[in-house]
């Protein structure tokens, strides 16, 4: 088998794994968009905030230490305890639910019936706020996140592929874990949406706000629930990306990676987010592998967008999006 083809296969597999991570972020967008029509730009920052909070709780950091030190001239940094990972994740989840409740009560309750662009701008404002808030609360330095997920090259795959192609594939253990977690998450979400009472209520709200209200579904409750779910997805994405490349500001930029995924898959479809993520992940890695060296590299920044753009010209609602019917 020619060498180039083997390399391409490795790139393909890695692209698939990266795609799963993109899909994970895109999922948070889809959840909120379906249930409340809000295009939540803050999803990436929520992932950053969740990861920051998780690290902060695990390390026993004092919240707002920098601010307190600046105001009162004290020198405090840590409580001096370490919280086990599982408990810290649970505590972070509580924080994210609280955040969801606050966001809904303070911001979006007052913006019901506004145009989508206004809601979108509000989420950008929220993103700015959370970014500054997270940095003030936990400090802006790059942090290492380790919740005990396996990392490094997967020996088994390396050996097996070496036996077949005479060349061992480099697949990160973390990527495999992420794939499994993402698959489980999607499966759980679909089950939740299809078979539980709250899930059905959520779909009803997504379908028609007023009709849902008239059969006795509490919009407020559903919205808080959806924002909490998105917070949960953000936490999972934050753990995966944070373990991979450290908890830092650039984590919030994964939102930008998820946007072309959404366009490709359709804003309203959960399977669309997954398939779109896989296509984008594989597409950009293969493009970088094949064309990148010719044009100076770093094509990953824009390739996904151009791919989605070209695709949308032929199918404006995305792969799985609901058909857009326009009436005068």
């Amino acid at each position, binding site marked *: 088998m020619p060498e180039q083809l083997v390399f391409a296969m490795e790139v393909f597999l890695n692209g698939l794994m990266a795609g799963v991570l993109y899909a994970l972020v895109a999922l948070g967008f889809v959840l909120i968009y379906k249930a409340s029509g809000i295009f939540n730009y803050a999803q990436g920052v929520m992932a950053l905030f969740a990861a920051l909070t998780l690290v902060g709780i695990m390390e026993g950091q004092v919240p707002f230490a920098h601010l307190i030190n600046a105001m009162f001239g004290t020198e405090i940094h840590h409580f001096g305890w370490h919280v086990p990972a599982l408990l810290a994740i649970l505590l972070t989840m509580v924080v994210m639910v609280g955040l969801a409740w606050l966001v809904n009560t303070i911001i979006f309750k007052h913006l019901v019936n506004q145009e989508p*662009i*206004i809601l979108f701008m509000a989420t*950008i*404002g929220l993103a700015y*706020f959370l970014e500054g*808030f997270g940095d003030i609360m936990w400090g802006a330095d790059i942090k290492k996140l380790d919740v005990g997920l396996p990392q490094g090259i997967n020996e088994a795959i390396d050996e097996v592929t070496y036996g077949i192609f005479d060349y061992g594939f480099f697949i990160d253990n973390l990527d495999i874990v992420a794939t499994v977690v993402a698959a489980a998450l999607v499966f759980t979400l679909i089950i939740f949406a299809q078979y539980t009472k709250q899930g059905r209520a959520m779909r009803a709200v997504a379908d028609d706000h007023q009709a849902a209200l008239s059969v006795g579904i509490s919009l407020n409750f559903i919205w808080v629930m959806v924002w909490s779910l998105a917070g949960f997805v953000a936490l999972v994405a934050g753990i995966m990306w944070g373990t991979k490349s450290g908890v830092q500001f650039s984590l919030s930029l994964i939102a930008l990676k998820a946007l072309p995924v959404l366009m490709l898959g359709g804003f309203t479809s959960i399977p669309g987010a997954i398939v779109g993520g896989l296509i984008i992940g594989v597409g950009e890695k293969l493009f970088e592998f094949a064309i990148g060296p010719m044009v100076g590299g770093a094509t990953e920044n824009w390739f996904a967008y151009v791919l989605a753009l070209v695709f*949308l010209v032929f199918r404006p609602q*995305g792969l799985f999006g609901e058909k857009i019917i326009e009436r005068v």
Partner: protein
Amino acid sequence: MFYREAGDFKTSYSEDNQTFPIKFDRWRYYFVLLVAFAVVPFIINDYWVNAVFLPFLIYSIAAIGLNILVGYCGQVSLGTGGFMAVGAYACYKLMTGFPEVSIFIHIILSGGITAMVCVAFGLPSLRIKGFYLAVATLAAQFFLVWLFNKVAWFYNYSASGQINAPERTVLGTPITGAQTEPWAAYLFCLVFVVICAVIARNLTRGMQGRKWMAIRDMDIAAEIIGVNPLRAKLSAFAVSGFFVGISGALFFSVYLGAVEVGEVFGITKSFLVLFMVIIGGLGSIFGSFAGAAFLVLLPVLLKNVLVGTLGWPTDLAAHLEFMIVGALIVVFLIAEPHGLAQLWRVAKEKLRLWPFPH
């Protein structure tokens, strides 16, 4: 009482059709122009020009451009930073390629080049609508920034990858480069702002503006009453690109002087200009100015208060600034989704009756 249209009689059609038909508005407009041209240049210093006036003027042009696209024609764009970069790099190439031509012409030409690029990226708007379009314009943003980073021809193969504005003069006075006097840079930008604002105002209240608004309100209905969506949308992209390109060219040549594309014209710039448009008021030229003034002044004010007066560490102040800007945007959207321009309209209504409301 203080703001009234009554008693303002017109005796000819041209009077009735002038840009500011109400006498009070007209006089206020002349007054602002007078202050801007004849008073401000004499009293400003370097700090005020560089921290407040130049960014305000240049962002105003960009905000007017984006407002035409988003506020009047309803096509949400997140590619403003990329289009400003096109203006900046076009200006740079023209300035270094044709040094004998006046910089005035270069800047207008860079606006034209940006308009063409903008139309090219606006083509998908015929198929894609709403948020899908907003995200699609991000393709322009990322692709253009990448292009200017990677293709060395755009920055004349300089080692640092930066572009630096060579020194150019208008009527013997240096406008770009280190020798520039603050008032000269200010006046140069002001001329462009006034020209752009007059063009925008007259475009938007004429036939073209009405076509754009028809497309914004509902494009299918507009098509049925005889507006050609292709021409209306693309003309909005072109005019918007022209203004944004001019502002990008000014931003690079007059304001910064040296530009590294990823830093200056990144995605945050796109959001900043969009914020200006939305906080100022969608579909209002005055709103573009108000939004630009608000978002230029706010960080300056916060920095002065937090670092200067309270003496906090700068990194803490920077984070706090993020929080305050974000919170203010949200508060603003909740209190007045139609922006500062709407507040002004309400104030005018009040002034019409005040202090005798009955």
